[in-house]
């Protein structure tokens, strides 16, 4: 998100937060969020693909709502109105091509209207058929939804698959497949959108999902302040903010939101963007001559990724605050935690909570309830390693993200066992404040170092290069 967009969104949010307090608020939030999907999607080398990806985002969101909403609620008036608004926005985004507004909403020229009409007709047929046939087997349809989302997710995250799909699209458009690249499919915010959709589908499967209207659902999935970089809110919490009437923003609410926005802007555009200049990357990793400077570059990366990510979260929380939303926290001083467990409870918290809810806890329950129960350490090892591997793969399906996940999974397991080992031995030391302070400081330092070294896997593209950098950091490179 550029500064210009943040400014636009801030003004829009302030206006909506201060002026709109009636039932139209949800429609407006949905409409603006839908427009933001087009506005924020970056240009792609394949003609009009940015437009199509934005449109498919909306299609998937409506599909997610149809899958998770009881059939008897689908045709309620407010849902039909919301659907009409969404279709109008899609058509308007396309009409900019003819209104001389070509690139104002989408990054490149939208497709011809007849193409969109064919697409919309097929989409309506598809959604209608889904709504009709899901009555026959809701479980099967919900499972299909999960499979489909994971399928798209895997395609986007595996570079070779993304390149292959790009090649197919290029071929279909009569262009050379030779120039296909994984970056051709840079789908704005899909990782977050997919995980919100998966959360609602899974909660529907387990019966925890409340009934929400289409405008509420769409607003939750593509809420514009959190579209690009989260946080991944829970719908149950989100709709509480959305449904609250009347929304009275106090001066303190506004000033807190403003403060949060300013802190976010400073973190992202001053700290993170400055550190990005000197942060470790695949080019300077090979050029750096000494271990000392390599550490400097690694620490720069370590803080750059924190300020970048937490800055965006602050911006989202700030803009959300102007609208009367309290988006969840994502980062709470993660580099000041004395162990890896606490680090992961304060780093990208909403993503961690997601995996805890939908992988760690169910798998732990399963392993503990089976006939042949595994020993506790084995269960901890399997669940922590599995969770961290999945968190790694969420960032991209590459060996380096696998290794980063393993690094943290093993670290968490070792720390868990070490803590278990130490607990009885440190039991009598609670009153020794000096020693406790020293141990806490040492733990924070060691945890930070471990996390920082882990970023070597995350920041670089290949295991070989990461290994070279690790050796250099430890003064063992040739």
């Amino acid at each position: 998100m550029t500064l210009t967009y943040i400014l636009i969104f801030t003004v829009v949010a302030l206006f909506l937060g201060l002026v709109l307090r009636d039932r139209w608020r949800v429609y407006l939030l949905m409409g603006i969020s839908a427009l933001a999907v087009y506005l924020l999607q970056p240009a792609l080398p394949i003609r009009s693909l940015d437009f199509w990806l934005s449109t498919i985002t909306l299609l998937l969101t409506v599909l997610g709502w149809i899958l998770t909403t009881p059939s008897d609620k689908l045709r309620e008036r407010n849902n039909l109105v919301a659907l009409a608004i969404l279709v109008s926005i899609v058509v308007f985004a396309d009409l900019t091509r003819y209104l001389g507004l070509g690139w104002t909403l989408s990054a490149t020229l939208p497709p011809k209207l007849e193409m969109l009409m064919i697409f919309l007709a097929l989409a309506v047929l598809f959604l209608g058929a889904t709504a009709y046939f899901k009555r026959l087997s809701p479980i099967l349809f919900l499972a299909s939804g999960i499979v489909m989302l994971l399928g798209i997710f895997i395609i986007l995250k595996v570079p070779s698959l993304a390149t292959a799909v790009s090649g197919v699209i290029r071929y279909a458009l009569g262009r050379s497949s030779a120039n296909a690249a994984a970056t051709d499919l840079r789908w704005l915010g899909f990782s977050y959108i997919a995980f919100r959709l998966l959360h609602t589908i899974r909660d529907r499967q387990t019966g925890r999902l409340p009934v929400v209207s289409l405008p509420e659902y769409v607003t939750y999935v593509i809420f514009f302040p959190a579209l690009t970089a989260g946080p991944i809110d829970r719908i149950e919490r989100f709709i509480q903010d959305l449904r609250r009437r009347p929304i009275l923003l106090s001066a303190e609410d506004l000033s807190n939101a403003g403060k949060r926005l300013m802190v976010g802007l400073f973190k992202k555009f001053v700290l993170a963007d400055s550190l990005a200049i000197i942060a470790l990357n695949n080019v300077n990793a090979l050029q750096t001559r000494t271990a000392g400077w390599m550490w400097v570059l690694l620490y720069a990366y370590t803080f750059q990724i924190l300020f970048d990510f937490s800055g965006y979260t602050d911006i989202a929380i700030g803009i959300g605050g102007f609208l009367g939303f309290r988006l969840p926290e994502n980062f709470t001083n993660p580099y000041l935690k004395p162990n890896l467990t606490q680090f992961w409870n304060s780093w990208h918290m909403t993503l961690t909570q997601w995996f805890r809810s939908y992988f760690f806890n169910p798998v732990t329950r399963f392993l503990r309830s089976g006939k042949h129960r595994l020993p506790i350490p084995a269960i901890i090892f399997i669940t922590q390693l599995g969770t961290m591997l999945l968190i790694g793969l969420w960032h991209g399906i590459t060996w380096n993200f696998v290794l980063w996940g393993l690094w943290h999974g093993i670290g968490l397991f070792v720390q868990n066992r070490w803590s278990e080992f130490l607990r009885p031995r440190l039991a009598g030391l609670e009153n020794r404040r000096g020693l406790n302070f020293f141990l806490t400081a040492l733990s924070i330092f060691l945890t930070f170092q471990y996390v920082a070294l882990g970023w070597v896997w995350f920041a670089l593209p290949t295991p070989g290069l990461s290994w070279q950098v690790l050796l250099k950091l430890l003064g063992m490179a040739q």
Partner: protein
Amino acid sequence: MTSSATGSSRLINPYLVLVKGLILFIFINLICISIYIPYGKLSLYNFLLPGRERFPFAEEVPEKIYNLTTTNLDVMFSSHIISSPKSKDEYRVVLLGDSSVWGASLHPEDTLAGQLDDANLKSCDGRKVHVYNLGYPRNSITKDALILNEAMRYKPDLIVWITTLGSLTPDRRLDHPIVQSNPSRLYELSHKYNLEFDFSTINFNHASFLDRTVFGFRRDISDWARLQLYGVLWAATGIDQVYRNSFKVYSLPELIDDISYFDWQPPAFDPRLLSLDVLEAGMEIAGKTPVILVNEPILIISGQKNSDLRYDSSYPRWVYDQYRQIMNVESKENEWHYIDLWDLVPSTDFWGDTDMHLMPAGEARFVEELIPYIRFAPCP
């Protein structure tokens, strides 16, 4: 959304915050307008980071070469290693000149200054000779004079000023980014040494009212900050430009038969057209510090079509010959220590892929020639 913790916290009026912020913004800008803040003198170089071995200059994107172009003399000097303190046993030699001195495509240690510095010379009084590269791309004698004027603050013991005909021509009198970006220093130079510049011919980058606000020089501040950050990568990697590790031997161009030089026609040009007054001013700026004025080597093409008319793609023979003659006469008259090394490196084997820049081996030839002059330079 209602405030949950309003009981204990002070109620903040956002409009008041906006007004206060605006007042503070205006106040800071007014300070900036009324007081010259020499932010360029602040630097992490030579303090937390090693100083650069040549002035910041970028022909490539900064992200690739960890360098960027600045024409702010304060920033240039504060990032340069010459700003580090001078020790008692140091004999400080500064080299002035254009891209051939700056060292286009060369590693810092392969430049003229780098190779001279690596020669571990001792001065006549036994001090260790340190040679500093104060070259800056594109020749302009006025640019050299401005740099020299600043360099005097760093107490050089010897100045080696490398020039060529192209530095002294009228078009290069004011047409250089450093000259145009530093109008106040140019006015000062002009006033102090009675230099007549035609200020009306050039659009100097005068600072308007808006330019003097924080908003106005945000780009300069951003460049300054980025240069500090690139200093980390310069320190980590030693990279400050795209280096050419292998050089193709210069392939000779076809020489044109045009023997005019700008609008000068043979058989002779008016010597007053050369910026010798700026050269004289430079000598005055140097004061008692000895100056060695060097006519830099050029590639002499022979046996080619029109090589009887031209030495290279830049210089017709008649112009260059007369320039050398004038320089010899002027040097004698003014008692300048002048060395004419124009034909020192005639072979194409020593030239890189242009007829202006020497390869490391060519620089080595140049170094060999200069060493005795530096070694036996008078002690101040």
